[in-house]
């Protein structure tokens, strides 16, 4: 690319500014104000002027310096380097992350706040890995994953409150129930082509939420369920004083009581659950079923020709993905102690899907990076709470534009002819 002519740059900048002006006038320029006598209008043309001039000069600067062409390849090569890591190095990175995660609660700066955020990130990592089975490996677009998360959370909450079941008993039950819901939904709809499946799963997610919101006797409606039992350390509760006949956790180990014990315990619990999901996925990819998922993602017709039953294979991916969502849901319920349908809205599904896609479909490490990014960015922006979600949406678009194939692109099948497995 040669030097950009100033006149041309000026014209481009003027055009961008005109578009910005048209976009800004109606919604930025005028503000509806509620008054006693209906609505009235307030104008904010100074904002429009600032915005439009920012766009004009920004576009002019980009066009004149020609950086757009130079900057992007640089950034791209960073990402490419990430995805081209040799197998050993990427395994090393994964191992380093795991060690870091194991040691996190022990480092001095890890106060309650840090560990709580780490727990949230790990929940999303686990959800991302669970959804990765469905979207990344089997190639099925699921926009209602949060429904299974909700099923898991409500299963634990209701079973433990109504029947007094312990967390350890509820956890597998919650997973099984979520998997059963996955089969129930999947059975009729998995014949559908990709995008039809997407809308049905989206509708299913909304259905679950609406039912939870309205079936008050069952789920408490919009008020949700509160005082859900906290988990105990295999029968030893995390409490300052034990109820009669019980030993508390700190008594068992002869420690000083600290509320941090429970948080650290929760942290390791979700770390173990997430790592189980990860190990499961990695093992599945080497089994015939996992290979069939990937084969189905690449070419359904070829699979049918080879005698693979697509419905059963898809159903298994759906059910297993749902099961991990259910586990994560049960953990979420016990961690929060309170759940309501609000926690299971479509935006959650969208965030989880974004984690999978931004991470690079099918990449396990990519999911970790993307989950950390998408959870930490809103957390750091907490001070700008008003602009938080605006910036979040913008970041999603920008990352997609920067790396459409995901942060760590990893679409290569686990097995290939004449190559390494």
């Amino acid at each position: 690319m040669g030097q950009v002519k100033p006149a041309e740059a000026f014209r481009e900048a003027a055009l961008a500014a005109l578009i910005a002006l048209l976009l800004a006038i109606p919604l930025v320029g005028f503000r509806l104000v509620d008054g006693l006598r209906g609505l009235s209008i307030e104008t904010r043309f100074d904002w429009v002027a600032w915005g439009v001039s920012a766009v004009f000069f920004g576009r002019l600067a980009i066009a004149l310096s020609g950086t757009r062409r130079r900057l992007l390849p640089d950034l791209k090569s960073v990402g490419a380097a990430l995805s081209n890591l040799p197998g050993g190095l990427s395994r090393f990175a994964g191992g380093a992350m795991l060690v870091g995660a194991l040691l996190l609660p022990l480092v001095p700066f890890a106060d309650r706040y840090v560990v709580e955020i780490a727990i949230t990130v790990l929940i999303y990592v686990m959800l991302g890995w669970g959804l990765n089975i469905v979207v990344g490996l089997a190639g099925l677009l699921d926009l209602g994953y949060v429904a299974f998360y909700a099923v898991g959370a409500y299963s634990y909450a209701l079973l433990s409150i109504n029947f007094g079941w312990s967390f350890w008993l509820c956890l597998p039950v919650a997973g099984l129930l979520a998997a059963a819901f996955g089969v129930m939904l999947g059975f009729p709809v998995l014949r559908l082509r990709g995008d039809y499946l997407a809308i049905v799963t989206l509708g299913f997610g909304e259905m679950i939420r609406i039912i939870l919101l309205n079936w008050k006797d069952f789920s408490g409606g919009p008020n949700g369920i509160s005082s859900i039992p906290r988990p105990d350390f295999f029968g030893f509760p995390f409490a300052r004083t034990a109820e009669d006949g019980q030993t508390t956790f700190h008594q068992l180990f002869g420690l000083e009581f600290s509320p941090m014990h429970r948080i650290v315990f929760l942290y390791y619990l979700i770390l173990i659950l997430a790592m189980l999901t990860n190990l499961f996925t990695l093992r599945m990819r080497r089994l015939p079923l996992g290979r069939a998922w990937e084969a189905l993602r690449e070419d359904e017709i070829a699979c049918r020709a080879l005698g693979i039953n697509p419905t059963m294979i898809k159903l298994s991916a759906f059910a297993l993905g749902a099961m991990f969502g259910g586990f994560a849901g049960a953990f979420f319920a016990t961690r929060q102690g309170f759940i309501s349908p609000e926690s299971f809205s479509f935006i959650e599904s969208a965030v989880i899907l974004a984690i999978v896609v931004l991470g690079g479909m099918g990449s396990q490490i990519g999911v970790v990076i993307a989950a950390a990014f998408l959870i930490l960015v809103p957390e750091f922006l907490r001070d700008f709470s008003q602009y938080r979600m605006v910036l979040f949406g913008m970041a999603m678009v920008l990352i997609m534009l920067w790396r459409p194939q995901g942060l760590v692109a990893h679409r290569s099948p686990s097995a290939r002819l004449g190559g390494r497995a």
Partner: protein
Amino acid sequence: MEYLVQQLINGLTLGAIYGLIAIGYTMVYGIIGMINFAHGEVYMIGAFISIIAFTILGPFGFASPIVAIIIVLAVALIFTSVYGWAIERIAYRPLRGSFRLAPLISAIGVSIFLQNYVHMLQGAKMKPIQPVVRGGFVLAQEGTFVVQITYLQIGIIVATVALMAGFTYLIQRTSLGRAQRACEQDRKMAALLGVDVDRTISLTFVMGAALAAVAGLIFTLYYGAVDFFIGFLAGLKAFTAAVLGGIGSLPGAMLGGLLIGLIEAFWSAYFPIAYKDVAVFGILVVVLIFRPTGLLGRPDIEKV
């Protein structure tokens, strides 16, 4: 019986709104095979621009509401179309040709952005306006129950039918429509034969946004209140309508919209209203089990 007729009228009106939004989904899907998640927000922006325009016009006090509506319509069409164009240009065009889910995630990002952008700029509270069009015809009366079709409902149904007719003409008879159908079938071939693909796709988004603006204006007039969250559910249902009718098919989108409007109206009348959305999605699932490509969709042949 009277009650049923009333619900039929209400359902048709609601269905017209869904149908108009659904066309935007179905056109975009037809031409680039992408679920434009941000379309519901475009509709919400159309509704906001309408209500802002009405509030600005308010003090001038137009003699006839029709003049006011036409001015607001023009304003909403122009500005909403710019939004539709800009979204495609900024967030989708650079991703054309990359893998299938990339534009979808980008669209979800745009949707989150637009929702919170309007929230931030206009506040979270519901914005009510005075009814612009009042009155209607009484069709039948039984005891105290009056079956009524308001002037507004007549206007909505007439406008929707007119738009549909205009649209069918546009797609079937004009060169733009021909270019669109060509891009739908084979974009590369169309480009080789001299169709400006970028321009055609941009115009598709502009048209979709324009129809969403009309739907937004209708919503403002009919319900009289707007907030930043209306786009999500309406978009979801309109997309359901597009799928129900067979995505990619324009008459299908309209049919799906009408069906969903009617289901909602009748369900609300005879069953617990809180579950009306469950009924809508339930019917979608049932229809898709028996007709996997929707009511009017062409079964597509898979090729190796």
